[in-house]
């Protein structure tokens, strides 16, 4: 529908939209007065997934189901969504900050000849134009940006926007548009799954535990994982810890790693170098535990404990266990 806000669906590759979509749809609905539609490129659409999108508030789901849409390839996705956008004239196209969507949405914007605002943390309608807010320079400043013309293309940082409240029973109309056959240039070879920690994904987790140089070695991360299992957290690391080879790079939080914005961040033995702060300073509640009272992380922490993390972590795990078992 013309004037609708589109939300590109990020899914788990198994037929279910990820939780971040409730945030993207929720924010789009607030800005669009409810005219929100989901665009789902997948090889595994499920009825449960379609139901979920409807309950979150999508009035319509453009279901682009084709084996060629998985695994994600930018040339295939951009062609399909641009073709649909030319017919339907959406007012805005929103995605989530994920590995595939950061790339895809940029390519789509070029295809449509419009501006892109990546990794946004706030939006406001000013008259009939949209203004987005996004952190720049390692979060030292924020920029307010606006588009010369529509559709307004943007990606939204996970865990920042208020999620849509699911409305049980609300359904979306499902459209299966006929589009040109996808022409893939990249040839898929294989997918190698990361060794699973059994803990949540870093980028989407509502609670994140981070271990820095103060962890002293890779063998000690097990105490953070014990705590993580109790409170349902993801475990990340600072650049110092990754550069020392203690954790694989995919666990790095910060400027040359992942940007996260959890509800609760707990840093242990993390000094709070500017590179690290760049990747976590929009966390809602920040806890820092460090032996050094001068560690810069205490400047942005909501709660700090100046003590040896090897004493604090086991005590914290036990205390949370007591609380959560009640």
């Amino acid at each position, binding site marked *: 529908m013309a004037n609708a806000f589109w939300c590109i669906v990020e899914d788990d590759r198994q037929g279910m939209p990820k939780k971040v979509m409730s945030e993207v749809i929720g924010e789009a609905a607030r800005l669009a007065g409810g005219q929100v539609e989901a665009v789902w490129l997948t090889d595994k659409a499920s009825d449960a997934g379609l139901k979920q999108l409807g309950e979150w508030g999508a009035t319509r789901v453009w279901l682009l189901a084709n084996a060629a849409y998985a695994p994600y390839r930018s040339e295939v996705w951009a062609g399909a969504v641009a073709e649909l956008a030319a017919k339907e004239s959406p007012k805005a196209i929103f995605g989530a900050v994920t590995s595939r969507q950061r790339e895809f949405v940029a390519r789509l914007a070029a295809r449509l000849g419009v501006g892109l605002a990546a990794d946004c943390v706030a939006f406001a309608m000013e008259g009939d134009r949209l203004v987005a807010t996004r952190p720049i320079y390692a979060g030292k400043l924020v920029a307010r940006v606006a588009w010369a013309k529509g559709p307004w293309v943007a990606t939204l940082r996970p865990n920042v926007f208020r999620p849509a409240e699911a409305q049980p029973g609300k359904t979306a109309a499902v459209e299966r548009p006929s589009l040109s056959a996808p022409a893939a240039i990249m040839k898929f070879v294989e997918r190698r799954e990361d060794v699973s920690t059994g803990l949540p994904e870093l980028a989407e987790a509502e609670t994140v535990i981070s271990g820095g140089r103060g962890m002293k070695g890779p063998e000690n991360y097990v105490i953070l994982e014990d705590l993580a299992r109790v*409170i349902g957290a993801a475990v990340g690391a600072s650049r110092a810890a990754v550069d020392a080879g203690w954790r694989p790079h995919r666990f790095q939080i910060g400027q040359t790693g992942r940007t996260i914005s959890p509800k609760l961040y707990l840093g242990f033995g993390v000094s709070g170098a500017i590179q690290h702060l760049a990747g976590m300073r929009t966390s809602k509640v920040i806890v820092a535990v460090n032996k050094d009272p001068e560690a810069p992380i205490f400047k942005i922490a909501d709660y700090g404990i100046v003590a040896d993390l090897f004493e604090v972590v086991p005590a914290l795990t036990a205390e949370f266990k007591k609380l959560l078992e009640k």
Partner: protein
Amino acid sequence: MKILVAVKQVPDTATQVKIGADPRAIDTAGITWIVSPYDEYAVEEALRIKEKRGESEVVAVSLGPDRVKETLRSCLAMGCDRAIHLNDPAWKDADTLATAKALAAVIKQEAPQLVLTGRQAIDDDMGAVTAQLAELLGWPCAYWIMEEAVDADGKNVRAARQMEGGVEVFDLPLPALLAAQKGLNEPRYPTLKGIMGAKKKEIRDVKAADLGLAAEPAQLSIVGLEAPPPRPPGRVIQGDVPTAVKELVRALREDAKAI
């Protein structure tokens, strides 16, 4: 084979950044400029491909004002063969799309088989130019590259990209674009010989008109810059470890409602 590396000059992470007299731009006085860290992985990878294959040329390209010459000189010192400087006031307000258009025009002139970039620049963190180049050129593109291998006859590159939960491997027919992720390699430091040699290497200035381009209005503009909202004052919890831990758990549960 010819490899082109697109790099961006950015303020050093440790540099203080202040809003300028024009509230839509930063005050550039006193800023230390560096090559954006992800771009260094791209330069390093290009040099490694050249060293492996021999008979290759690595061209560094950057868009920006006169000071960008420093950045290109660093790339030459690392080992790039020559550099192209997109240096024209027409690009003063270039957004990602205008930047991509300028780079695409250079790429069409230079006709490299492979273009490498960083996955995003650490100043505006947009991470868009490589994907937009791919669209303008009609080339395949892979982001978040952790490993790559160009095949012996230079027809194809096999690239592994880090996605959520796993690594996906693709074959991309050349010409293609790759956006480098940390973990791809460890960038080298320029040697003294490299630094001396860089002074003799060519940095060619290119104007918009040389590429048949004219200034065009940006599709995305900065309305204003602001300091980030201040964080509420925090507190250091006192007492011995058992006491402090109990109080922290209570505060997270009852005051912050974070757990």
